[in-house]
C-alpha cells in the first residue's frame, strides 16, 4: 500500500503480512511511518487509492477478506463507514496518549463500548470489565475518574478497554512513551502477561527493546515508509545486517 499526506509520501509500496497470533514489533526512526501503519489498520487513515486496487495493491486484507476496501459489483472500492464498522470490530488499539474518556469513570470506560457496540448486557459488561481491571491490577480504581489516575494507571485502563472488545488484533503505538520511567514497568508487565496468556495478534511500536526481544516473534525495521530489514528479535538485535538498523539500534540503546 501507499500512503501520502498531500505531496509527502509516507508509505511507499509497503507490503507485509502478519500471521494470526504473531507478535510483531515495529521499530524505526521518527517519521518513518510506524504510527501511520497502525492508524491505517485502525481505519483512522485511508490508504492512498490506486486506479486498480486489484492489480496495483493498496488494499489491507484481514483474515482473507478486504478490510480497507469492499467488493462492489465485482470490484474493490474504498470501504464505506458501514463496511468499516463491520470489519474493524476485530481490531483494537491502545494510544500513546491513552485517550481515556474523561467524562466516564474507569469502569464505564471499559463497559461503554461493550454495551453500545457489542450489545452486551450491563451486568455482563461489568463482570468482564472487573475481570480485565483485575488483570491490569486496577481492581481498586473502578470508581475513579481518569483525571485522578497516574499515566501508567490510565494506560492500563486503556489496555483493559481495548481488550474488553475481544479484538483478534491489538495495535499498540508507543504505549509507554508518555509515561514517567518508574511507571513503564507496570504497563509492560501487563502486556507481557497478555502476550503470555492470550493468542491475540499484536502489532507493537516501541522503543523498549528488552520488551520487544522478550515478546515479539518478529521485529521490523522501518525507514522512510519502507521495511529496511526484518527477522526474529535475537537476530535483529545481535547481528543486524543493514547499516541503518545498526545505527538506529546503537542510538536507541545508548539512551
Amino acid at each position, binding site marked *: 500500500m501507499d500512503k501520502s499526506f498531500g505531496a509527502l509520501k509516507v508509505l511507499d509500496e509497503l507490503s507485509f503480512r502478519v500471521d494470526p497470533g504473531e507478535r510483531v514489533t515495529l521499530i524505526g526512526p521518527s517519521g518513518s511511518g510506524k504510527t501511520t501503519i497502525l492508524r491505517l489498520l*485502525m*481505519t*483512522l487513515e485511508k490508504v492512498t487509492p490506486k486506479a486498480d486496487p486489484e492489480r496495483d495493491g493498496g488494499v489491507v486484507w484481514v483474515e482473507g477478506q478486504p478490510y480497507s476496501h469492499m467488493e462492489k459489483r465485482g470490484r474493490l472500492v474504498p470501504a464505506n*463507514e458501514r463496511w468499516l*464498522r463491520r470489519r*474493524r*470490530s476485530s*481490531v*483494537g*488499539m491502545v*494510544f500513546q*496518549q491513552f*485517550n*481515556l*474518556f*474523561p*467524562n466516564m*469513570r474507569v469502569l464505564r470506560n471499559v463497559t*461503554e*463500548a461493550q454495551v*453500545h*457496540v457489542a450489545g452486551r448486557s450491563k451486568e455482563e459488561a461489568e463482570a468482564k470489565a472487573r475481570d480485565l481491571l483485575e488483570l491490569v491490577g486496577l481492581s481498586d480504581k473502578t470508581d*475513579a*475518574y*481518569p*483525571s*485522578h489516575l497516574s499515566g501508567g494507571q490510565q494506560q492500563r485502563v*486503556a489496555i483493559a*478497554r*481495548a481488550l474488553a*472488545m475481544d479484538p483478534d488484533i491489538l495495535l499498540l503505538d508507543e504505549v509507554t512513551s508518555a509515561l514517567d520511567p518508574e511507571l513503564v514497568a507496570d504497563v509492560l508487565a501487563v502486556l507481557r502477561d497478555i502476550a503470555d496468556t492470550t493468542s491475540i495478534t499484536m502489532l507493537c511500536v516501541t522503543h523498549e527493546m528488552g520488551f520487544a526481544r522478550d515478546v515479539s516473534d518478529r521485529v521490523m525495521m522501518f525507514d522512510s515508509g519502507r521495511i529496511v530489514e526484518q527477522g526474529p528479535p535475537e537476530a535483529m538485535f545481535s547481528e543486524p545486517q543493514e547499516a541503518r538498523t545498526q545505527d538506529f539500534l546503537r542510538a536507541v540503546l545508548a539512551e
Partner: protein
Amino acid sequence: MDLHAVIESLPRYGEPLLVTIGVTVASAALALVLAFALGLMTGSRHLAVRTPARVFVEFFRGTSVVVQLFWFAFAMPVVLGIQFDYLIVAGVIALGLNYGAYSSEVVRGAIAAVPQGQLEASTALNLTPFQRMRLVVLPQAWPEMIPSLCAFAIMLLKASALVSVIGILDITWLAGLIGKQPGQDRLLHYGVVLVIYFVLAWLIWTGMRALERRAKRGLGVDAKPVKGRLDPAVAAGGVG
C-alpha cells in the same frame, strides 16, 4: 415625596415583569435548542448539511434584531399570511432565532475543541458517529459551553426590552410610561428597572455557575463550593 410614589406604583410592575421573565425564558429555551441544532450542523463534515446552517446563522447574525422583531410581528402576517395570536410569540421567535444563531457558534466551537484523540479512541472502539457525539463529544463539550451560554442568556435578558418596539409592555417600557406621569420621578423608576435586571442576571449567573460545577464534577474535575455562595441546588432551582 417621589420615593413614596414609586413604592405605591411598584405593584404595576408585576405583569410586565412576568413578560420580561417569560420572554427571556421562552426565547432562551428556543435559542438553546437551535444553538445545538445549528452548532452540530455548522460543524458537520458534509457540505450539504453545513451550508444551509451557515447561511441561516450568518443571516440572523448579520441583520438587526429590531428589524427581525418587526418582521415577525408585522411583515410576516402580510407577506406569508402567518399571524400569531399573540404578538409576544413573534417576539420570542425573533429573539430565540437571533440568539440561537449567535450561540450556535459556542456549541460548534466547544465541539471542535474536544481533542481529536477522543474521536480516534471512540472509532477504535467502533462506536457509530452518532454514539461518538452522544457518549463522548457532547458530554465533554457541554461544560465548556456553559460560561459563554450564560453570557448570551444575560444578553438575551437585556435584549428582551426590545419587544417594546412591537408594542409589548415589559418593565423597561413600563418604567418610561409611569415615569412620565405627574408626581413620578423617571430616574427613580429606571433605577427600579436596573435593580430588577441586575437581580435577574444574578440569578441566571448563579444558576449557570451551579450547572457548570455539576458538569465539571462529571469530568472528575474537583469543583469545590465557594464559601458564601448560594447552595447550588437552590440556585439552579431559582432559575429553573
